[in-house]
């Protein structure tokens, strides 16, 4: 593993009885990047992250985290990692500050308490209340502070914005971006594609325990589906356009305007349109949601 690779998984498998959660996961996360780990519930995101911290043991494959084997040296891996669990549970009998001090003590008192107060202030977290009186959103904030407070080299965040309202989601994404600016590598799982689109540089899509795609977020958006809207000066026969490879007619009205979905390169469509009197041409970037659905759609078609 080169120094620029912070986390690497090769052929990672994990099963729970007859349920195969991971079926050979291959991943590489580079130093200093924000890496989105996308997949629906049950795809294997949590299982992968928990293997990285030696909370569960894989049945096969190789794992390296920060150049260490998590099973052989779990304490060293955890010392340099900040973790936010997908289903965060805190001791209800503690107060917020007490819980954070406990986590800090478990790290040998490494955190700078001024920095802890700074993060808490930034996300509007009061340190005085008892954990049991906190809303889910505020508990999630406690989880984030404990993950960030010792300025880890690697952040493993499992669905960090899950269950949060949009304002807090934005705060959380801001904190993640700040952590990266401070030199951290961020690996975060999500099934909310828009947030990955917002901050991740690279994305892996996991489905049924296998990575189906790893790509730059931008290239993923560019190369997949596009929605094209064309207006003509006079009615045309749009069937000729629909017959082009990768083009699907979504809507047409009186022959003067069409809405199409184009998969792959635009070249064929542009050349075909040159034969028509075009008055307006618009193309939309697809959202990651659409790309994501397209992956699943194609997978389902292949399965048939």
């Amino acid at each position, binding site marked *: 593993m080169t120094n620029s690779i912070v986390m690497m998984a090769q052929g990672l498998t994990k099963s*729970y*009885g007859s*349920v195969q*959660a*991971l079926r050979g996961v291959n991943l590489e996360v580079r130093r200093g990047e924000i890496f989105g780990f996308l997949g629906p*519930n*049950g*795809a*294997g*995101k*949590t*299982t992968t992250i*928990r293997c990285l*911290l030696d*909370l*569960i*043991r894989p049945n096969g494959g190789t794992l390296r985290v920060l150049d260490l084997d998590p099973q052989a040296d*779990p*304490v*060293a891996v*955890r*010392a340099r*990692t900040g*973790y936010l*669990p*997908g*289903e*965060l*549970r*805190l*001791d209800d*009998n503690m107060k917020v500050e007490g819980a954070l001090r*406990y*986590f800090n*003590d*478990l*790290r*040998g008192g490494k955190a700078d308490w001024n920095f802890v107060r700074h993060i808490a202030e930034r996300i509007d977290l009061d340190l005085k209340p008892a954990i049991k009186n906190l809303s889910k959103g505020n508990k999630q904030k406690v*989880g984030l502070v*404990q993950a960030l407070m010792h300025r880890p080299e690697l952040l493993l965040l499992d669905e960090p914005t899950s269950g949060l309202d949009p304002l807090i989601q934005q705060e959380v994404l801001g904190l993640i971006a700040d952590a990266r600016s401070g030199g951290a590598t961020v690996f975060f799982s999500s099934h909310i594609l828009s947030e990955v689109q917002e901050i991740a540089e690279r994305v892996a899509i996991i489905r049924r*325990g296998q990575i189906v795609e790893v790509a730059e977020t931008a290239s993923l958006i560019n190369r997949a589906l596009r929605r094209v809207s064309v207006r003509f000066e006079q009615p045309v026969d749009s069937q000729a356009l629909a017959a082009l490879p990768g083009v699907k007619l979504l809507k047409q009205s009186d022959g003067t305007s069409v809405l199409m979905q184009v998969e792959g390169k635009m070249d064929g469509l542009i050349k075909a349109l040159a034969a028509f009197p075009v008055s307006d041409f618009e193309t939309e970037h697809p959202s990651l949601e659409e790309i994501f659905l397209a992956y699943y759609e194609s997978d389902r078609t292949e399965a048939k």
Partner: protein
Amino acid sequence: MITVFRYALRRYRGQIIGWGLAMFALGFYLVPFYDTFAAQQEQLLDLLKSFPPQLTAFFGDMNTMFTPNGYLTIEYFSYMPLIIGVFAVVAGSGLLANDEENGTLDLVLAHPISRTALFTGRLLAFVVATLGILLIGWLGLVLPMGSSKLLNIGWAEMALPFLSLLGVLLLFGALALALSMVLPSRRLAASIAGLVLVASFFITGLARISEDLQGVAKLTPLHYYQSGDAINGLNAGWLVGLLVVAAIFAGLAGWRFERRDIRIAGEGGWRLSLRRRKATV
């Protein structure tokens, strides 16, 4: 490990005070009462003769009940493993499985602390909490000693039955802990360990009146509990035996904890476990 120990012990505070004070109050009540009790021994003996031997067998030898040691055995030490055993079984089974089932262990173990250190720190806290409860209980018996003219046992002698009790409690706590590491839920582990405790109590008691049960009774931990008899001299072999078995159970639990997956919240029972795992992977 020190942090784990400190925080785990802090969580036992309420239980140490609660169980300890209950034992303290019972001792504080029983010691001054002995003089009155001894003065009425003829009437009480007549009354006891009317009880079936199957009942009195659980509380020790009734012929010695008017001696100070016999009195404390029957009124205090004979049933104490059953009472404080509840603490040992619940605390032992919940030492790790409780946090695992409520989901807090996941985050704790994501910190730079080895499983061995977590296990050892919490186990030590359990041992210290048990010692604390027994210490408060012991004070409840020795502090009012001057209030009785007839009951006069030295502080050191009075500590001996508590040592015997400690051996039993650690054994049942460690058994519950070991079971919690192999069974799918803390509750099941506590139930089985509790069942062994109750069965052990009855078999040991009934073996006093039935020779047939004496062989089986030797296989139960409470056979090696000396109760108030320890005041006359501690059977060190029995105590060491109890502690060795406790250490074996604790060792098995630690070995298992090192090797198993840490479950996340809600992965409790067998059926629930499969459903939740599918939902959270």
